[in-house]
C-alpha cells in the first residue's frame, strides 16, 4: 500500500463494465469456454513483456475439477481488472499479480459468487482494494491509514455478512435436523406404492 495507484472509481467502473467474454465459463477439463491459463498468460505478458512458465500457469489449468469454477471465473474477472492501461504502462506488477491470482484470490473467491464482483458495489470496491493492496498500491488520493481503514471496514462488512449467512444456514440445518428427529420419533409410515 506504500505507493499510490489509480483512482478507485476508475477501477470499480471497469469491473462494473466487465465484458461478457470474461464472464463466460472458464474451461475446466474439456467443459467451459475460456482457457484461463491463456488469459492469465496474456495478462502477465502485457504487464511485464515476459511469458510466464508452464509451472507458473499450473494453478489455472487443473484438469476436471468443476468445484474450481468460482475461483477460475474470478481469476478471469481480475485479469480484466489488471489489464487496465494504468497497470500495463508501468511494467512492474506482473510478479505480484501472479501471486495474488494464484494465492490470495482462492480465499476471496471461496466466499463470494463471482457475479457479485461485478454486480455488487461493495464487492466491487472490496475486490479492487484487495487487488491494489496485494500488488503494493492504494487508491489515488488516499493515505495509507485511510486505505487500510476502508478495506478493514469492507472486510468487516463482508465477514459479518458471511458469518450471518453461515449462522442462518446452520440454524436452518438445525431446524431440519430437529424435524427429522421428530418425524423419526412419530413412528408413522407414509405410504409409498413401491420399493426402491
Amino acid at each position: 500500500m506504500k505507493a499510490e495507484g489509480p483512482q478507485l472509481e476508475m477501477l470499480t467502473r471497469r469491473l462494473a463494465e466487465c465484458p461478457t467474454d470474461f464472464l463466460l465459463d472458464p474451461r475446466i477439463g474439456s467443459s467451459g469456454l475460456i482457457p484461463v491459463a491463456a488469459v492469465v498468460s496474456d495478462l502477465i505478458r502485457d504487464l511485464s513483456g515476459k511469458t510466464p512458465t508452464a509451472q507458473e500457469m499450473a494453478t489455472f489449468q487443473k484438469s476436471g475439477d468443476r468445484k474450481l469454477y468460482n475461483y477460475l471465473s474470478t481469476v478471469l474477472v481480475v485479469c480484466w481488472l489488471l489489464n487496465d492501461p494504468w497497470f500495463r504502462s508501468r511494467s512492474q506488477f506482473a510478479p505480484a499479480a501472479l501471486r495474488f491470482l494464484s494465492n490470495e484470490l482462492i480465499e476471496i473467491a471461496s466466499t463470494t459468487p463471482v457475479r457479485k464482483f461485478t454486480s455488487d458495489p461493495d464487492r466491487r470496491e472490496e475486490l479492487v482494494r484487495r487487488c491494489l493492496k496485494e500488488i503494493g498500491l492504494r487508491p489515488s488520493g488516499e493515505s495509507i491509514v485511510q486505505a487500510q481503514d476502508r478495506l478493514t471496514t469492507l472486510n468487516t462488512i463482508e465477514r459479518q455478512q458471511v458469518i450471518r449467512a453461515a449462522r442462518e444456514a446452520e440454524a436452518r440445518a438445525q431446524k431440519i435436523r430437529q424435524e427429522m428427529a421428530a418425524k423419526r420419533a412419530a413412528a408413522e409410515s407414509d405410504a409409498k406404492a413401491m420399493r426402491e
Partner: protein
Amino acid sequence: MAGGFHNKNLFPLLSEEGHRLLQWLHEHKYAPHYTHPGCDRLTAEGLEKVRAFEAELDSPQQSRRNGEMPDWLKEHVETCYRDVPFYRRSGSAPSNFTSIPTTNRRDLSREPWAFVPDSQPLNDLVIYQTSGTTGHPLDVLTHPTPLAMYLPLLRTALAMHGVKLEGHCGRVSIILVCFQKSTYTYASISPVLNQAGLVKINLNPADWRDISHMAKFLDACDPEIYTGDPISFAELSRLPLQTRPKAIVSTAMTLLPGRRHRLEQHFGCPVIDIYSMNETGPIAVWLREAHVVLQKRLYIEVLDRDGFSCPSGVHGEVTVTGGFNPFLPLLKYRTGDWARLAFHGTQVLLEGLEGRPPVIFRGRRGQPINNIDVSTVLKPLLLVQYSLHQNRDDSLHLRVHGRIQDQNRLRDIIISLFGEGQRLFVEEVDSLPAAGKILQYSRDDE
C-alpha cells in the same frame, strides 16, 4: 397394529368408504400384524398438485433430441444456486450446464438437510431411510405430495404395458410385498386412487398369526397389482393364491429375464420392471428392449467418470437433474447406475441399464437371507461403504471402506443374522472398486 386410522392428520381426505376399507384392512381376521400406522397426509392442495402432475404426464411428450436441453432446466439451475445451501456454496451458477459439478449419494448421505431449499416449508416432512444397496445408507427427505405422485407415474408405466390402474373406491389397488426379516408394514388409503387401498406387507411368517393367513388375506384383498422386488415375488409365487393381479411391478433390484418369464407364467400377467430410486421416484419403465424414461421434469444424462457426456452407444453413469421432490432438487446427481442413453421418436431411453442385482445369502441353517436384511442390520454401524460376498463354502467376506469403529459389534450383528458358527472374514480397505457400480452383494454361485 390398529388405531391410527381414525386420525384426520394421517388421512386428511379420507372418505367414509375409505375409512371402512381401512378398518377392514386392519380388522380382517387374516390381516398381518402391521408394524406402523399407515398414513397418507395428502391435503386437497396436494391432491390438486398431483392431478396437475398427472395431466402433465398425459400431455404430448416434448421431443428431446440428443444434446437438447429442456426449457425448464436453466431456471432450475438458477434456483438451485440461489436457494439451496449445498449448491450455493459453489458460488455462481455456471452459464454452461456442462460446467456444473456432479453430486453423488455420498454428498446427500452426509448432509441431506443442505439439499432442502431455504424457501421450502418444513410442514409434513417425510423421511425415507434407504438400506444403502449402493453402499451409502441415506435419509431422503420428502413430502406426502411427491410420494402421491408415484401413483400417476405408476399408472403411466402400467399403461405402456396395456394395463389400467383403476383405483376403485372400496377395493385394494396395490399391495407392496416384501420378504425381509423386518420392515415397516402398514395399511393406507389413497385419494389419488379414489379411496382405494394401498397395503404394505412382509411375507416373513413372524408378521402373521398363522402362515396360512398370508394367501387368505391377499386373496381377500384381491389387489389390482402387486409391487415388490424379485426376491419377494419369488416368495409370493410359493403361496397358494386363488386370485390373480392385472400386473406385477418389480423395482429396487435387477429383474433378470428368466425370473420375469417364470413370474409371468406363474401369475398369468405382465411383470413390469421399473427403475426407481428414493432420491428421484420412478425414473423409467422397461418396454421391449430398453427402459423408457417416465418423468418429464427429470433431465437425464449418461456421464463418464470425469463428468462428460458419453457418446451415443457408450455406457456411462446415469446422472439426473430436476425431479418432483421439492425437498431434494437434484443437480447432476450421479445415481450409481450405468446405462447407454438413446432416443426413439419422442422417447428418452436407457439401454443396458445395470441396476442392483438381488442376492439371497444362505444362513447357517440353510435359511435364505435377503441382502436388504444385511443392509438393515448394518445400518446402525454407519459404515461409509462396504461389500459382502458369500463364498461357495458359505463363508462370508466383508470388505469395509476405511476404519471400523467396533469390529466385535459388527461381527456379532452379522453372526446373529446368519447364525452361530458363521465364518466371517472382515477386511478394512482403502477403497472399493470404482469401475461402474459397486457390486455390493454377491455370491459365488450367482
